[in-house]
């Protein structure tokens, strides 16, 4: 089986970020970058599938600046076989990402594309579904369990009210949710091995015109400061005053 895993380089999800004072972007000075956490879960799942079936090949791809090599090397250290870095200085929207990935998928013909449900920087939750639509493949978003079963994947996905299991014939696309797995701790031998794994750099193939553009970044309105109450009695009085009890 061949599994393609698109990963995005994002600002550390645990860092506090602010807009630039002039509102033209996000202030990333002094902020670390990492693999989008949902994409790391996708890499982990692909590598686990490889560990169960040694004939599996796991290819990771990232679109963006040359700096994304760092995140691709991390994915190789988790256990991916090879990496592709599609270099562009353009700010791609999710349709643009889906267009590049569709071209790559047509070239590589993977059986499965495993990717994050959303990037934690733009919080779009779009690229996977758009890519599946472009390729005409079935999809399962918000996956919390993935099991190969003959010529199909059985995917349990979280829903608004519980969960459901879908059967997707190959080729198919799955987007990961947080509970699919817990990515492993990366040990030193993996990091060393990753340095010599193949990483191809290539230019963007499609360069689709953006469908949306972010024109301003601002801080959310601050909540007026609250106050502490001394006891449950004081809390109940305050709640009654506000008419919520």
């Amino acid at each position, binding site marked *: 089986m061949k599994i393609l895993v698109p990963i995005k380089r994002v600002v550390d999800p645990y860092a506090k970020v*602010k807009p630039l004072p002039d509102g033209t972007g996000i202030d990333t000075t002094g902020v670390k970058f990492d693999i989008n956490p949902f994409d790391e879960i996708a890499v982990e799942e692909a590598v686990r599938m490889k560990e169960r079936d040694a004939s599996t090949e796991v290819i990771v791809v990232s679109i963006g600046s040359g700096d994304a090599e760092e995140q691709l090397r991390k994915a190789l250290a988790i256990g991916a076989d090879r990496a592709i870095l599609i270099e562009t200085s353009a700010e791609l929207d999710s349709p643009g990402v889906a267009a590049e990935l569709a071209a790559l998928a047509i070239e590589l013909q993977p059986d499965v594309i495993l990717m994050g449900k959303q990037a934690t920087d733009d919080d779009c939750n779009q690229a996977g579904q758009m890519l*599946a639509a472009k390729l005409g493949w079935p999809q399962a978003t918000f996956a919390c369990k993935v099991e190969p079963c003959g010529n199909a994947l059985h995917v349990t996905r979280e829903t608004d009210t*519980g969960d*459901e299991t879908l*059967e997707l014939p190959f080729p198919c696309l799955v987007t990961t949710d947080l*509970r699919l797995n817990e990515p492993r701790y990366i040990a030193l031998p993996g990091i060393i091995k990753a340095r010599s794994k193949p990483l191809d750099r290539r230019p963007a193939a499609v360069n689709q015109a953006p469908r949306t553009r*972010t024109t301003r970044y601002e801080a959310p309105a601050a*909540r007026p400061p609250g106050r502490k109450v001394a006891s449950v009695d004081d*809390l109940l009085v305050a709640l009654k005053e506000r008419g919520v009890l």
Partner: protein
Amino acid sequence: MSKLLLIAYDPADGLQGAGFAQKLGLPFDLLCLTGVAPTDVGAERALSAGLDEVPPADALASGLSGVAGGYTHLAAVSAMRSKDVLARLAGLLDAAMVTDVIAIESPSVFKRPIVAGSIIATVEVLATPVVLTVRPAAFGTPNLGGASVAESVALAGSGTAKRLSISARGGARPDLTQAKVVVSGGRPLKDAATFESVIGGLADALGGAAGATRAAVDSGIAPNELQVGQTGKIVAPELYIAAGVSGSTQHMAGIKDSKLIVAINKDPDAPIFDNADLGLVADLYDAIPEIRAKLGR
């Protein structure tokens, strides 16, 4: 001419989305996938697809693409089910898409939160059509009145994904995203039974819904559909009570629209107190029973 198709799963979802549709100010049609589309929310046409069960995303998006012609805007209330399908529909239509709209500047400029709500982005749409998922709390309830033309439509879509099983756990409590009161618990709730009796018990006493942090869901204390936050549900109740919740950016991203946030935490320096309207420094195992005793519920 610009026109919106508001896509709803059922009449209640249609009512929630109609607040946005009215504020957008374009003529619109309402399509209800299940149930009968209400005719009094200001739509020109109230379309009912009459589905018994909504199919997997590939078939549904394919069916929706068949009725999408002629609309410049296609929108649905933000939820996992709409994000699953509408982004696929956007892919089929080669459309622009804006997720989680919280404000309308014009029919082609919207605001939305990014990076777990730390930043509000203004997004300009450069192509038509545009697909939108919208947060209903930002747009209020719709004005009712008038009479739309009621029609039934057939969605003729096909897909290869097959549903093997589906489980819906919803119980007697109100829907988390629509509840007037939400009581949430975090990691210190120990186990599912404790969560249910302490958090569920207070939620029931207040006629509200129960919610949870990711830490609580990950440790099996609460079911996944109760997760509130950046990657869970977005809530907007009159009263949000967070007990044993530290107040991470990711959790707060889901509760900012609450009218009143109450935090009960035993650590006086917990970050949640920075964003709570009322804070009580206490052990939740003492405070919650005391609240219920004093309310007599």
